[in-house]
């Protein structure tokens, strides 16, 4: 009698096993699927975090360079982060995260470790607007480093930079380095502006002028230094000359 039941029992047991296995595997797959989704989300989160860390590292390197320059530069500067860029086609400008609350004033010069960036034109409470050197509304005094010939550095509407009013007999050549002359009260002498790319002088012109390739890539700026104080070049010279004089003559 038992033999009669054995067959169906085996069949039933094997069906139960297979159904159980299928169910278990399905359940396991479900868990794997859920786990897979969670892992995918985790990977995305970690990729985001990694990207953020990489970005922070790049920014830190950038600011470290600025910080090193700040420590050695012959002027007092304040680091600032760029939080916005030109809001129209008519001005070449950036917005920095330092303003009147940080004792920033209009007309202060702005530089990077590479060279001159521009000048502050408007100060809000916590932000300031910096006109870049490539804007026609900015003009600073510059000089050719080798010949010491001075001129005016000014932007053009096309976004390039020109050095105007170079003496007619100046031996300016393509490739000459242009630095600040320090005659205006926003930049000290000797800051790198760029190099001469092209020299032009029409027959009717009184002065020579040159196209200047800026050393700073204005489109890739992330941090800058605002020049808050420096010793003007003229004062430097008078100090050095007075130092060489006898004390009685040097005294006012």
């Amino acid at each position, binding site marked *: 009698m038992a033999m009669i039941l054995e067959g169906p029992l085996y069949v039933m047991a094997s069906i139960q096993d297979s159904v159980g296995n299928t169910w278990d595997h399905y359940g396991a797959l479900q868990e794997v699927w859920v786990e897979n989704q969670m892992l995918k989300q985790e990977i995305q989160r970690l990729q985001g975090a990694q990207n953020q860390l990489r970005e922070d590292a790049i920014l830190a390197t950038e600011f470290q360079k600025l910080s090193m320059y700040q420590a050695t530069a012959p002027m007092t500067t304040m680091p600032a982060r760029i939080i*916005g860029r030109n809001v129209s086609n*008519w001005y070449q400008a950036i917005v920095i995260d330092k303003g009147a609350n940080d004792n920033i004033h209009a007309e202060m010069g702005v530089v990077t470790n590479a060279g001159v960036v521009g000048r502050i034109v408007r100060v809000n409470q916590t932000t300031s*607007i910096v006109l870049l050197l490539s804007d026609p*509304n900015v003009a600073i005094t510059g000089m050719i480093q080798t010949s010491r010939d001075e001129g005016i550095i000014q932007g053009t509407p096309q976004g390039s930079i020109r050095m105007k009013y170079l003496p007619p007999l100046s031996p300016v050549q393509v490739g000459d380095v242009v630095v600040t002359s320090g005659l205006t009260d926003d930049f000290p002498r000797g800051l790198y502006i760029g190099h001469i790319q092209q020299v032009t002088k029409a027959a009717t012109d009184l002065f020579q002028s040159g196209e200047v390739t800026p050393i700073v890539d204005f489109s890739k700026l992330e941090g800058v230094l605002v020049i808050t104080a420096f010793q003007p070049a003229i004062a430097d010279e008078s100090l050095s000359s007075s130092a060489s004089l006898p004390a009685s003559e040097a005294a006012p």
Partner: protein
Amino acid sequence: MIIAGYLILCIGTVVAQATLSTMLSVNDIYPDLCLVLVCIIGFLTNEYKGLMIGLTMGLFQDLLAPGGIGLNMILKGLAGFLAGATTHTISAVTPSVVVLITLALSLGCGLASLIVAYPALIGPEAFHAIVGTLLPQSLYHSVLAAGIFWIARKTRKAFGMVHSRQGHR
């Protein structure tokens, strides 16, 4: 609530203009998102809303611009007002109408900005500024405005919102 919405739109657009304009630039031509938005709001609503939003957006834009406060405010306000007023004189505002009106408004605003920014600009440099920057910028604005206007109108229709101008007629 609506005023708060418009304020958020104004602030958001100016912030987007200051941070994303480099991404939206085509061949070094930056779009003036504020002008485009002001024109569209003028087209979709009326001249008074266009004027108010234009003035507000222009004021916010002036706060981040190197020029003095007032220029963008006046120009954007005027552009919004004129865009809104146009809907009274034209029977149906279509994307092609938006293209033409935005082009005209953008040229006017751009020319005024150019004169204020560079009052001494003459000769080849002025020609270059007009042909190389002002015209492409205005064309870009008009195409952008038409595209956004078309999407906005489709969205309004999809949500069963009646165009205020058409509703009056």
